[in-house]
């Protein structure tokens, strides 16, 4: 076990836990934001640099601070480690820089983007970014592509988090999906536009933090905050069959995996990630296909939760949180 202190909160976690996982156990504002890290995908993380934190004390054994900011999603904790996240101006500044870099070539087409409302990049830029933009250059553009017949790839919006590549690598055998070209011109693609033909490929949509990979059966149907999320399940031979339905009236507009607090797929009861198959995702679009469990609680700070049934409860929580933060600031 290792004791780690993050922004003054101390927690004991098993050896080999990453700083992000330790912070998530503490919860609240001190959790570093992540764009490319996805706890259920192996070797994900380390690319986007939004989770950079400052290690002010390496460990009890070696108390030297780490010379550079480290990525919280890949750096494992040491016993006695002390980490600064939101208490370090250096970290906040670096994060602001990362947001600016991520938005540098992002088209900012949120008004027509299906991801808007549940977009990690929107949340990130709102919470950690600076106002305005300092670039006046023409943004990088790519042609739109199809990844199989059900997924649309809008490369302009991509932030190169590699999450979908990890899905292709780890869920879809015989993958043909990867990254082409280098640096500024790097793009997600299927080699020679070969369609991905795999039962699990749809999970790429769920892991995409932005609107780069969208569900072609849902594109432009509705803004996400106008749809009601329901927990539902069905007997499926391929996957766990536990999904979130996004419903408008009686129509099932969209089926996704169940995502938790950090916008990651939740585990099923047996502890395995609740990835869902393409049949459940794209073909079961009738309410009669599903056993409805009840309204789905969206525990996110994004816009969907604002129009939720639990709106009032949520609002109350938010207010009390704000009050706490205010009091804390006042006392300091």
């Amino acid at each position, binding site marked *: 076990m290792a004791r780690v202190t993050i922004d003054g909160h101390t927690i004991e976690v098993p050896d080999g836990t990453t700083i992000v996982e330790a912070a998530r156990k503490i919860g609240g504002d001190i959790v570093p934001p992540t764009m490319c890290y996805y706890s259920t995908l192996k070797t994900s993380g380390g690319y986007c*640099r939004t989770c950079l934190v400052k290690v002010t004390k390496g460990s009890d054994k070696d108390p030297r601070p780490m010379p*550079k*900011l480290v*990525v919280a999603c890949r750096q494992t904790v040491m016993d006695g480690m002390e980490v600064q996240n939101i208490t370090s101006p250096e970290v906040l500044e*670096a994060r602001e820089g990362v947001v600016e*870099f991520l938005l540098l070539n992002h088209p900012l087409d949120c008004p027509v983007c299906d991801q808007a409302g549940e977009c990690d990049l929107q949340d990130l830029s709102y919470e950690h970014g600076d106002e305005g933009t300092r670039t006046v*250059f023409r943004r990088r553009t790519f042609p739109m592509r199809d990844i199989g017949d059900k997924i649309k790839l809008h490369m302009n919006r991509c932030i190169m988090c590699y999450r979908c590549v990890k899905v292709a690598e780890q869920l879809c055998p015989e993958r043909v999906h990867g990254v082409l070209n280098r640096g500024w011109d790097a793009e997600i693609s299927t080699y020679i536009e070969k369609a991905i033909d795999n039962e699990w490929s749809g999970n790429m949509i769920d892991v995409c933090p932005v609107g780069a990979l969208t569900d072609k059966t849902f594109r432009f149907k509705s803004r996400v905050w106008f749809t009601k999320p329901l927990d539902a399940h069905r007997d499926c031979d391929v996957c766990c069959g536990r999904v979130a339905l996004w419903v408008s009236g009686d129509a099932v507009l969209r089926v996704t995996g169940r995502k938790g607090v950090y916008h990651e797929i939740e585990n099923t009861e047996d502890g395995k990630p609740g990835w869902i198959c393409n049949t459940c995702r794209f073909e079961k679009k009738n309410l009669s296909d599903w056993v409805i469990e009840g309204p789905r609680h969206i525990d996110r700070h994004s816009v969907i939760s604002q129009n939720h049934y639990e709106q009032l409860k949520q609002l109350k929580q938010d207010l009390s949180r704000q009050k706490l933060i205010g009091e804390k600031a006042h006392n300091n």
Partner: protein
Amino acid sequence: MGRQLLLDNLDKPGINTLSGYQETGGYESLRKALQMKPEDIVAEVQKSGLRGRGGAGFPTGMKWSFLAKPPGEPRYLICNADESEPGTFKDRYLMQRKPHILIEGMIISSFALGANTSYIYIRGEMMYVYHILQKAIDEAYAAGYLGKNILGSGFDLDLHVHCGAGAYICGEETALLESLEGKRGNPRIKPPFPAVKGLWGCPTVVNNVETIAAVVPIIRITGEEYAKIGIGKSTGTKLISASGHINKPGVYEIELGVPVEEFIYSDQYCGGIRNGKKLKAVVAGGSSVPVLPADLILKTANGEPRLMTYESLADGGFATGTMLGSGGFIVMDEDTSVVKNVWNFSRFYHHESCGQCSPCREGTGWMYKILSRLLDGKGETKDIDLLWDIQRKIEGKTICPFGDAAAWPVAAAIRHFRSEFEQYIDKGNSDVKHYYRINNLQES
């Protein structure tokens, strides 16, 4: 001219062949090394104080001693011959002229580390050097220096040359490993370091060509003798690729500790500035290191003469110092525009960024575009501060040191030559068109 340990006998005809190399005492160090215990060779290298010649200057003996030795797992030695840093061409020269010194160094180093398979990862653009090396390796196999039971010692070694596809990033050691494994050349996240988990998950040492070649003279003259050359912690000789506006550009082997002034002006080395012009600035260690103006490269901020050593060049930190780096010594005369120079470097880094980390992927391109606009005479005063801010947000925020390498030249150019940036903004740029024309570039 000081002692020549690597570039000696270069004029001898046939030095690039096995017989020619053997006539000058080649492979004698190998015979000597095979009589020694592997750990004694490591100790000898530690005693010599040899530091990595690829740029970072990490003590080689220490790096070797870090190599994990789990039982039953193979270990690998990889020679990094992916020399792509603008301004650096020493490894290519050495491999081209004296391929056998590298092969001999590889065998000795592999023996010291207990590696039975070793690789030379060579840059894709240097295909002709690949053929030279391959020919030399074939000769070494035929002579029994490679293969099974080398010279009756019971030590087996297979040496392969692998040709990269010409990506600068594959010179980063973990990207090199990925590329060697047949994957996309993206740097890995460290830890684990290659010494623990390197090629195919096995302990691996990655060394520069010159570092491995230097092992040969170290064994020949002993580590203690080698450590006597040079000053302080900068021991031995170093190959310097001198280029730019000097009378005698080329690769020079210097004893570390030669004053920079002597190196630039002495007829033994660069032979002074071309056409009798004045020295304006020097990039002392390849494109990644900060550029220094003439007064700071010749003398440190304290007024002491600057020497060609790791410590002296780094004196004063980045505020008034630079780095020895890989030894790519680029000299600029008074007519050179530092802004154009840094524009060229930033274009290079923009092109070569692997695209994993967002600060580097986006930031390098952004800096390049701002610098292009500046050169076009359309810059604004705030652009200088913007450039400064961008480089600050790239530096130290990325997986590998590429981000730092892209940020430092821009930072140093602004730090030391801010007025020149301002000139471009105030007056526009009258000679941009000329510049585009002589370089056959598309004006955009």
